């Protein structure tokens, strides 16, 4: 294989919200290239629906302090409070910046950005849900992705589309570039850089039922792990309460924000038992657990593994009246079918397409779906990647967006905070990486820079076994869904860990059909499944060790949060085939951990 070499001061891996935001800022100060395995507009940011949070107070009183506290509480006190405060206080500025870039937010009658309620976001004085999620119908992520890509075109940002990054080049302990394969030709390319920003998104494809794209295979996290660097808080993976039954396709929390409710087989609005104050708008971990309990106790619809999400106007209006929900002007909150159609057009389209169900006439069958990685590549607030529990910075290496763990989401992310995370920390990454690059020299490239990338591909191409990659992937997904999902036990997690290790061994004996150079997705899919196996192993090992229940990590055998022993972040390394775990303290500033009630 021939190798082509390129040189840019800053190289950004991934072209979703974080990568594009980083590109807009880095390219102002330094020569910059964005490398993406997809065309940028195919990135998974585009699938985000409900909104981006910021305490603008456009509809009712709101404050960044409340947003901060809600996020700390939502994180089950595992989020670093300095980082959370930074993000929530930056939120209004960043949302206005997106608007100034042309993002078509929905509008209030006064012409301001329209906001809706979302799970866990409250008025801290009344405890009632607050309208904090800025939205463009139910396609807010699509609008953010399109707007950022449009601005990148306007600003002549350099893209390498459909280039799969396979390896990070490290020289003298510093990031010095990446190695990528060009899908169209199969050629390897070395990108020599002073600074590298990892923005490759999440890894929901570890689980059987997921809202995540096929592309969400944890590439950036797996690459970093292979360089001997740790991953943080990998046991915390969010299951979104409302995925379309069996398909896992996301149904935005905005449905409940607009007044939709979850209903069990007995016709009960069961969330009032689990979260008496905010009910269906509790945090996602709380709602997903409640749904599992309902199903376990036989109240799934027809005894099956799903419940109903009901946004029919008559249902919305009935419960809005019971809850005493009002409009901003104090009149009772009531909706019509037409209004629901206008506010949630895409999810209505999904339900009609995939289920033949019209949500304004029938309830939607839903089940929790693997959705979001709270953990990832450890960084500080400047998005610099950290090498250990002492906070040692890896020079030249940055991470932002879902593949990073700052940590602003802790043990459970609040809805709408992911899009906020992307733009806030994407911008920080672009600014800091460019600043670093302008003051640094290129490290000399090693002669064998592409060798490790090539050896990974060769191992797959030359593998002589008869295992099908798809079979291994299916077994991993099933095992992780069953045993490292919403509820976990010691025994189950140990079995999952053993199983993942067995699958990793079997992965050494795969057979792929395509040995060509042109657009070899057989090869790259196999490489991606290898990433997922590494991520699954770290996830199961990190989860097994944490003997408490916190946020998305919920154990039958340790049902309580244990701040005495476990108010700390996990760091996991892979060394000599084993997972090594260490811990670091959570940054606490203003908020003492207390019991979490919704």
């Amino acid at each position, binding site marked *: 294989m021939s190798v082509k070499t390129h040189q840019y001061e800053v190289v950004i891996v991934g072209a979703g919200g974080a990568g594009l935001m980083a590109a807009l800022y880095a390219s102002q100060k330094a020569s910059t290239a964005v490398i993406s395995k997809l065309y940028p507009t*195919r990135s998974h940011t*585009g699938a985000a629906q409900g909104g981006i949070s910021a305490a603008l107070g456009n509809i009712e009183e709101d404050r960044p302090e409340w947003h901060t506290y809600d996020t700390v509480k939502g994180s089950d006190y595992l989020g670093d409070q300095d980082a959370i405060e930074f993000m929530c206080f930056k939120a209004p500025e960043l949302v206005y910046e997106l608007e100034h870039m042309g993002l078509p937010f929905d509008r209030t009658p006064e012409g301001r950005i329209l906001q809706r309620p979302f799970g866990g976001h409250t008025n801290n004085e009344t405890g009632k849900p607050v309208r904090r999620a800025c939205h463009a119908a139910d396609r807010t992520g699509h609008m953010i992705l399109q707007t950022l890509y449009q601005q990148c075109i306007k600003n002549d940002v350099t893209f390498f589309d459909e280039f799969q990054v396979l390896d990070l080049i490290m020289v003298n302990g510093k990031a010095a570039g990446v190695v990528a394969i060009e899908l169209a030709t199969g050629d390897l390319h070395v990108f020599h850089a002073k600074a590298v920003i990892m923005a490759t998104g999440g890894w929901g494809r570890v689980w059987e039922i997921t809202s995540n794209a096929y592309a969400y295979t944890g590439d950036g996290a797996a690459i970093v792990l292979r360089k001997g660097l740790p991953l943080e808080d990998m046991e915390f993976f969010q299951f979104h309460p409302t995925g379309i039954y069996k398909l896992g396709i996301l149904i935005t929390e905005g449905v409940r924000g607009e007044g939709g409710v979850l209903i069990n087989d007995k016709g009960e609005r069961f969330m009032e038992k689990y979260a008496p104050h905010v009910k269906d708008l509790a945090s996602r971990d709380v709602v997903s657990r409640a749904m599992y309990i309902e199903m376990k106790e036989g109240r799934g619809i027809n005894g099956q593994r799903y419940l109903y999400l009901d946004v029919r106007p008559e249902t919305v209006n009935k419960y809005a009246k019971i809850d005493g929900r009002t409009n901003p002007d104090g009149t009772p909150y009531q909706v019509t079918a037409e209004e629901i159609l206008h506010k949630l057009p895409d999810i209505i389209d999904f339900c009609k397409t995939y289920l033949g169900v019209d949500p304004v006439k029938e309830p939607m069958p839903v089940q929790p779906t693997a959705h979001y990685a709270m953990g990832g590549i450890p960084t500080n607030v400047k998005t610099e990647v950290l090498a250990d529990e002492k906070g040692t910075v890896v020079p030249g290496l940055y991470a932002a967006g879902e593949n990073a763990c700052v940590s602003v989401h802790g043990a459970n992310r609040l809805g709408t905070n992911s899009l906020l995370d992307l733009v806030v920390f994407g911008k920080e990454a672009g600014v800091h990486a460019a600043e670093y690059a302008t003051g640094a020299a290129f490290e000399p490239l090693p002669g064998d820079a592409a060798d490790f990338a090539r050896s990974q591909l060769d191992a797959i191409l030359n593998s002589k076994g008869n295992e099908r990659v798809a079979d291994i992937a299916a077994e991993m997904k099933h095992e992780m869904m069953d045993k490292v999902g919403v509820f976990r036990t010691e025994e189950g997690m140990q079995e999952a860990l053993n199983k993942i290790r067995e699958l990793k061994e079997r992965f050494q004996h795969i057979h792929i059909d395509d040995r060509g150079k042109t657009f070899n997705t057989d090869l790259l899919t196999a490489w991606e499944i290898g990433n997922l196996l590494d991520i699954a192993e770290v996830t199961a090992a990190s989860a097994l060790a944490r003997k408490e229940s916190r946020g998305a990590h919920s154990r039958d055998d340790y049902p309580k949060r244990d701040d005495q022993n476990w108010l700390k972040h996990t760091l996991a390394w892979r060394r000599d085939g084993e997972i090594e775990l260490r811990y670091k303290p959570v940054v606490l500033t203003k908020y003492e951990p207390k019991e979490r009630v919704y």
Partner: protein
Amino acid sequence: MQVTLKILRYNPEKDAQPHYERYTLDAEPTDRILDVLEKIKAHEDGTLTFRRSCAHGICGSCAMRINGRNRLACKTLLQTLDTSKEITVEPILGLPRVKDLVVDMTTFFDNYKKVMPYFVNDEPLPEDGRERLQSPEERERFDDTTKCILCGACTTACPTFWADNSYVGPSAIVNAHRFIFDSRDRAAAERLKILAGESGVFRCRTAFNCTEACPREIDITKAIAEVKRAIITGRLD
């Protein structure tokens, strides 16, 4: 049930010409064409090559010709097709073949970039640093064309584009429309000038293929007509 897909295959490293291959397998009526392609790739023939990512009609990766019509494989359920007959799956037309169902999208994105598909307003920002105001009615004016996911289904269904790749095509016009009719934008005149040129809207022959092909149900022909009218009248109402 059993279903047979007749797929146009092409591997530039081996084939002088594209050819059809047939795959018969078990499937559910609710399976998407994408699910069937995934099953074939996973269990029968790993060399089958196609793009996909989100699998629910948002990312725009999997536009292809299914029974002669441009669709997203992830939004086309078997139960909406006649499965008693073979289902034909081919790459979208009018762009160079790369391999099997993958085509080279470079021309498509180059055409998109020609129409200034980005927000332009160099006037001072509001002094309080907050949003530019826009009424719900002004926002509604261009809502339909904000839905575009750049899948290429419309442009590669257009006979004019098939005949001449320099025509910017319906997708680029949709994305120009999104800004031309945005009350906050200030570059409508420049875009209209581009679209009044020889690669622009007047190449459209109103075949309606684009509107029929759009998986986002954008009324593309209407958007093109509005752009034409704006050029002719010089007005944006």
